[in-house]
Structure formats: structure tokens, C-alpha cells
């Protein structure tokens, strides 16, 4: 047996090292940089030098109504969108979970929203929603319903954006649940059938409990992404009208790249980071408990 070389003995560290260094440099360092900036006052446009201001940015941002509204809005958008996606997505998966003509095509169609460019999706929906020429109002009017202003009105903008998110991401839940259903073992179903369970009983007491872990993981993945939703909101409303659709991500973006108030922007980014981290810890906990 030959003596292992230096590289071979340390492969476990050497192989992932470039990737680790890359992520440390491009992700960990910038996050720490953001953290440090949050204690400073720095306006890139004014040319004034960076100043240490202690907790002043936190006091200012955390007590500002615009920020608190953005937090509530972010959670409202996320919870409603993901709840609808979870229920619809699971229901569609349960419907499609059998052999049928055109199943391959149906699954291909379900993939399309997931790979469609979100900015372009947002713009297409803006054409739908356009109050004067849009199809949405035409459909309403043919049913004799009053026409809406959709994304142009403060009260309807968030539901209108939720519809877009639901259209784009429900198929993700469906495909994940379908994959989960395909991996279930046959035995519990046969046992239930032998016991004379009705279709509904099988669904409620066997199928759903068995795919629940998969549904939960899919939901948490969606929660994390929905909290960060940026592209469709930015493209469709830019956070407007007024601040009516301004989520944390949009607000952080504006403070950073429109007002260039980097110190205050950092506080907003840290808040968003914190919420996403909480959800991420949830998913990791779920994974490790599923493995044990």
C-alpha cells in the first residue's frame, strides 16, 4: 500500500476550501460589513465621511411607521401567499396523483411558471391588471362585476401581487408533493383498503399524514423565498402606490440605492436577514428531526 500524499490526507479540507473561501468573502464578509455599517451614519451622496453613531439608526428605523408597516406588509404578503399556495398546491398534487393521458405534458406545464423570468411575469400581469385595457377588468365586466384598479390602488395592490406569486409558485408545491407522493410505500394504503376505509378516510388518515413532512418542507422553503420577494413587486409597483406595497426588501433597496442612506439601510437589511434566518433555522431543525 502506498503512502497517501499531503493532498490526499487533507482532501476533506482542501476540496471544499475554495468554495468556503468564496462564500466567506462574498457572503459572510459583506454581512458583517452591513452589521458594522448599521452603527454608522453614512450618506454616499453627501460626501460626508462615515461617522459612528451607536444605536441611533436602530432607534430611528425601528420606530418609524414606514418601517413597521413594511414589516407587517412583508408578513401579510408572505403568510397569505404561502398559505394559498400550500392548500392549492397540495390539492392539485392529490388530484394529479394517478395515471392519466397527458400526465407528462401536465407536469411540463407546471414547470413553466417556475422557470419564467419573474420581472417579465410581473410585466405580463401588469398588462392584465391595466385598468383601462387589461383583461382582468374585461373579465369582471362580462360577469357584471364592478371593475377594479388592481395594482394602482392601495387597498387592492397586495392581493393583486399575491395572485401573481400564487400563479408562479403554486406549481412548485404541487411538484414537490407529487414527488413525495410517488415515494410513499404501498403497504399502509393496502392495509387501509383491506380495512374497508373510504377514499376520503384514506386521504385524510393515511395520505396526508404521510406526505406532511414533505408539504412542511416545501412550505418553509416557500416562506423563505416569499419573505424575500423582490422582482415582481419592484417591476409591477416599485413599492407603490405611495408605500402601499413596500415590503422590507423593497424598502431596503430604496434606502440603499435610491436614497444612499447606508446606515439606515443596514438596519432594514438586518431585520430582513433576521426574519429569513429564523425561517431557515426552522427548516434545518425540521430536516434534522426528519433524519432521526
Amino acid at each position: 500500500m502506498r503512502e497517501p500524499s499531503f493532498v490526499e490526507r487533507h482532501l476533506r479540507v482542501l476540496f471544499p476550501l475554495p468554495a468556503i473561501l468564496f462564500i466567506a468573502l462574498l457572503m459572510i464578509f459583506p454581512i458583517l460589513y452591513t452589521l458594522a455599517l448599521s452603527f454608522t451614519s453614512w450618506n454616499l451622496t453627501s460626501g460626508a465621511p462615515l461617522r459612528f453613531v451607536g444605536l441611533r439608526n436602530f432607534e430611528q428605523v425601528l420606530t418609524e411607521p414606514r418601517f413597521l408597516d413594511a414589516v407587517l406588509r412583508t408578513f401579510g404578503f408572505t403568510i397569505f401567499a404561502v398559505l394559498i399556495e400550500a392548500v392549492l398546491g397540495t390539492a392539485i398534487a392529490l388530484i394529479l396523483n394517478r395515471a392519466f393521458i397527458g400526465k407528462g405534458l401536465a407536469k411540463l406545464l407546471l414547470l413553466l411558471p417556475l422557470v419564467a423570468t419573474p420581472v417579465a411575469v410581473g410585466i405580463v400581469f401588469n398588462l392584465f391588471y391595466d385598468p383601462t385595457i387589461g383583461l382582468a377588468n374585461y373579465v369582471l365586466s362580462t360577469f357584471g362585476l364592478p371593475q377594479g384598479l388592481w395594482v394602482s390602488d392601495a387597498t387592492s395592490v397586495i392581493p393583486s401581487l399575491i395572485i401573481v406569486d400564487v400563479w408562479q409558485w403554486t406549481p412548485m408545491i404541487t411538484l414537490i408533493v407529487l414527488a413525495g407522493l410517488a415515494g410513499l410505500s404501498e403497504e399502509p394504503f393496502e392495509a387501509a383498503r383491506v380495512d374497508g376505509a373510504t377514499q376520503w378516510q384514506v386521504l385524510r388518515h393515511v395520505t396526508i399524514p404521510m406526505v406532511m413532512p414533505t408539504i412542511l418542507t416545501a412550505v418553509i422553503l416557500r416562506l423563505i423565498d416569499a419573505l424575500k420577494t423582490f422582482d415582481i413587486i419592484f417591476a409591477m409597483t416599485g413599492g407603490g402606490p405611495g408605500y402601499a406595497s413596500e415590503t422590507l426588501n423593497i424598502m431596503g433597496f430604496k434606502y440603499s440605492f435610491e436614497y444612499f442612506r447606508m446606515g439606515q439601510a443596514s438596519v432594514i437589511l438586518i431585520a430582513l436577514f433576521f426574519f429569513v434566518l429564523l425561517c431557515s433555522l426552522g427548516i434545518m431543525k425540521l430536516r434534522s428531526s426528519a433524519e432521526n
Partner: protein
Amino acid sequence: MRKKKILQEAVFYLAVVLISMVVLFPFLWMLSSSLKTQTDIIAWPPTFVFTPTLQNYHKVFGEQDFLKYFINSTVVGGLAVGLSLVLGLPAAYSISRFTQKKLALFILLARLMPGISFLMPWYIIFSRLGLMDTYIALVLSHMLIALPIVVWIMSSYFDSIPVELEESAMVDGATRQYAFWAIILPMSGPGIITSVTLSFIFSWNNFMFSQVLSMEKTRTLPIAVYNFVSYAEVDWGGVMAAAVAIMAPAIILTMVFQKFVVKGLTMGAVKG
């Protein structure tokens, strides 16, 4: 009894058609609007029957610098994915063979954390280094999208390759790194296709990073499409043609590699 069965089937297929229509409709509306004249688009009630025209496509590909943005998107995505494979394949191999779960989670963090919390510092740092509007800045940022996807997909792909393959080569005197290069990688085609397809699509669709880090020289397609609508009067036909042009490559990739894409998108959740 038979009647009931037929009715059930009819309801089922009706549901399938309905679901498919809802999914497909925005794409169809986008495509048909891209073939309409501005008069047809702003007509009320909306027109469903019209004479198709390619003028919007001529306009988009002719007057605008669309081809340049197309190339920019391809170059940035291609380089980001390629370099992510270079960094990600050995990392994924190490995670798989030495069961380094903590390391896997560390790299997954890059997929989970909000991009804007690195983007703001990048903006400051890249400005200082004079790297704004360069491929370097864009490729580095897009690598942070591609790398976690590559590592995540490839580490579970390597899990499915029996360890005995390298071990027997190593008994015969090959080094582990040689076995990885000469035995494992050539067997990893399906995994690599999955990770390349998915990470390229996500880079292709990325808006936020490119919006901040690119300007005229390196502008990518999503930014060009977005800029189309920021004019006072929206040229809907042109915008829809641009939207078709940007979605077409991702959709074609998805059709060609359907099985891989489904697997890549769903495996993380199902495994857990």
C-alpha cells in the same frame, strides 16, 4: 355504476384542463400580445382574433441593443455556472464522502439568505475597486446564485454513486483526487446537467444583482426588459416581445431537460 365512473373521469379531465389553462394562460396572452399592433393591444374590449404581425420583434431586435443584452446574460450565466462547477464539484464530493453536514448547511445559507444583504456592501466595495459595470462583479455575484445549487444537487448525486468504485481504484494505487477526476466525474453527467440547467436558469432570471451592479456596458436581459416599461407611454407590444425573448431560452432548456429540472427543484424537500 359505469355511468358514475364515466362521469368521474369527465370531471377529472375537466379539472386537469382547467389547471393547465390557468398555468398556461399568461404565457399565451404574452405571446399573442407580442404579435399584436399597439392598436389591437389597447382596444377595448380586448381582441382575441387579430392579424398577427412581427413588427414588435423587428423593433426589439432591431432598434434596441437587445442582442448585446442577450449576449451579456449568456456570458454572465455561462461563466458563473462554469466557475461554480470548478468550486462546487470538489466541495460537493467532500461533503458527500466525508459526510460534512455542517459544511453543506453553510453553503446552503447562500441560497437562503436575502441577496440584498450582500448586495448593498458589494455595491460599496465594487464601486471603490472600480468594478461597477464589469463582468467580474456580475459573474462573482451570480456565482453566489449558482454555487449553492451546484453543491446541493451534486452532493446528493455523489451520495448515489457507490464508494466501492473509488476504493477499488485506490487499492490499485490511484490517488483519491485522481479517482474523483477519472472515475466519479465521468459518471456524473446527469447530476451535472441538472445543476447546470437549474443554476443557469436562475442566473438568467436574476434581476436584483444585475440591476445594481450593471450599467450600459454589461446590462443583462431582465434589466433591459424592465427598462422598457419605465418610459412614460408603455409600448406593450415591444415589452411583450421582449418578455417572450427572455423567457424562451429558459423554457426551451426546461423542455429539453424536463426530468432533470423537476428532480433538481424537488429533491431538496423530498429528501428531508
